């Protein structure tokens, strides 16, 4: 009896602290959504609370004024290109490390680990000049190559950890038939491990969709801006109009938040696995 009371008191106080943290995490987002639905006069009188009258016109204005479609397309190209390259090139490397008895696999793994700890400020400035010489500066493909290089070491670790779990017997029977590495990878490994690949795709998509610093350095032509650099430019030029800025922010985060909520289990699994293992 006494124990039961103690336990429920404990659960109650746990929930109390968790609710405080919940408000801490959610309140700023609620304000963002509220403000995207207000008129400017409404916001001036009531900057934090829910809108007195719900207004969708900010989204129309924001969509047009920020050239949202153009920048979202650029971001989508960056995400698609990076995800595709990481899944193919990274997937091949992970398969080789997990399965093909790669001579020197330990060295390759060590090399990948050291790459993840490489500070971006050691190579970003010289990379700018190297990309300029190669004609890759101010291009989306040039940025995709950088994103692939930076995000792939962790992706390879995660994919490798998925692939080593697959029982070897499955491949061995195909090997006995003399199947090539490629056909084993495509016909046996991929169909079993596609969930692992999906997890990596999500983690990389979130990272690229929100990436700012490298895009800021590499891209100068505003028509090539992804949503991050274009949002900053918009927020700077529309300065005090928080209704419009909030509306742009809401449509800029909507795709990634939706993706996260749909796949949140898989997503958290991918990110956490990388650091727990």
């Amino acid at each position: 009896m006494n124990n039961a009371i103690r336990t429920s008191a404990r659960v109650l106080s746990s929930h109390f602290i968790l609710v405080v943290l919940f408000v801490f995490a959610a309140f700023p987002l609620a304000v963002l959504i509220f403000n995207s639905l207000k008129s400017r006069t409404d916001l001036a009188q009531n900057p934090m609370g829910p809108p007195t009258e719900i207004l969708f016109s900010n989204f129309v204005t924001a969509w047009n004024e920020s050239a949202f479609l153009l920048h979202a397309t650029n971001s989508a190209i960056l995400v698609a290109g990076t995800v595709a390259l990481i899944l193919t090139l990274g997937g091949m490397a992970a398969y080789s490390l997990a399965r093909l008895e790669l001579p020197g696999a330990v060295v390759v793994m060590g090399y990948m680990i050291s790459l993840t700890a490489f500070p971006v400020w050691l190579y970003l400035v010289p990379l700018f000049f190297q990309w300029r010489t190669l004609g890759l500066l101010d291009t989306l493909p040039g940025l995709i190559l950088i994103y692939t290089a930076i995000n792939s070491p962790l992706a390879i670790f995660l994919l490798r950890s998925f692939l080593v779990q697959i029982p070897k017997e499955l491949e061995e029977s195909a090997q006995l038939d003399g199947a090539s590495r490629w056909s084993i990878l495509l016909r046996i490994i991929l169909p079993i491990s596609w969930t692992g690949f999906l997890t990596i795709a999500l983690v990389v998509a979130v990272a690229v969709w929100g990436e700012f610093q490298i895009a800021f350095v590499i891209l100068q032509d505003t028509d090539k801006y992804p949503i991050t650099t274009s949002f900053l430019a918009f927020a700077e030029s529309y300065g005090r109009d928080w209704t419009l800025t909030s509306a742009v922010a809401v449509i800029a985060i909507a795709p990634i938040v939706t993706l996260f909520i749909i796949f949140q289990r898989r997503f958290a699994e991918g990110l956490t696995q990388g650091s727990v293992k």
Partner: protein
Amino acid sequence: MLSLDYRQKMKVGAWGFVLPIILLHAFAIVIPAGAGIFYSFTSFSGIGEANWIGLENYSRLIGDESFHAALLNNLKWLLFFWTVPFSLAILAASLLAQVKRGAMLYRVVFFIPYVLPSVVVGSLWRFLLHPDDGLPGLASTLGIPGFELALLGRSETALWTVAFVDNWHYWGFLAAILLVAMQGVSKELYEAARLDGANYFHQLIHVTIPGIRPTLLFMFLMTGIWSFLVFDYVWVMTGGGPAGSSEVIGTFIYRTAFQNFEVGYAAAQGVAVASIAITILILFSLLRKRGWEI
């Protein structure tokens, strides 16, 4: 049995599978890093020749007070990130590990800030911290005194405020990672602790934290390295100001290279950051060797 010939062929071909990504790494990371080390000994301005000037950039760096101030700000950032997000994340994860009802909702909401782009978070909090329209205004409307400060506009508070906002985006991610680690701690240890009459804090200190130590230390290591690389939040929220009070190495390097066109000097600063990262890594691996089980 597989033929020896077949196995041999598979092994040689294995390199073909890793080569493309290794070439890309070399091309986009390793070669530029090498070029950065080279530039650090030159007076390269971004155009024309890179003239060798030996250690001049490094001796300038040692005497550059703005660089020291930026480095000090990174150390403050490190101090903040080794304490605040870890405390929040340990608290949240240890509570989440206990509750059943609503656990999923808490987890999702705690994590959402982590998936938001830094530019959106920075701009949102600039609004929230606005002295008139934001939370300080709300506080004074409600009659709560002491919040009318322009936290981002004062040199004493700007850096800590930006760090606080970055923490808002980061702690939920850390909590998710620590929660996974906590779920791996044996239930029997908690049972035993409870039988001994251990309360929440005893269990946290004697069971939970020792149980997740490898993950905790790994995240300390990574957070430590990241603390020297921050750029986005500072750039978006204060631009390093007011009067350079929130300048960090990342924004300092950007300015040196792309606004002052002192690429050689910026490269030397990049090498300095890399040396710090390497030092942190070496310290951690030394601790590990001394039996810390990292």
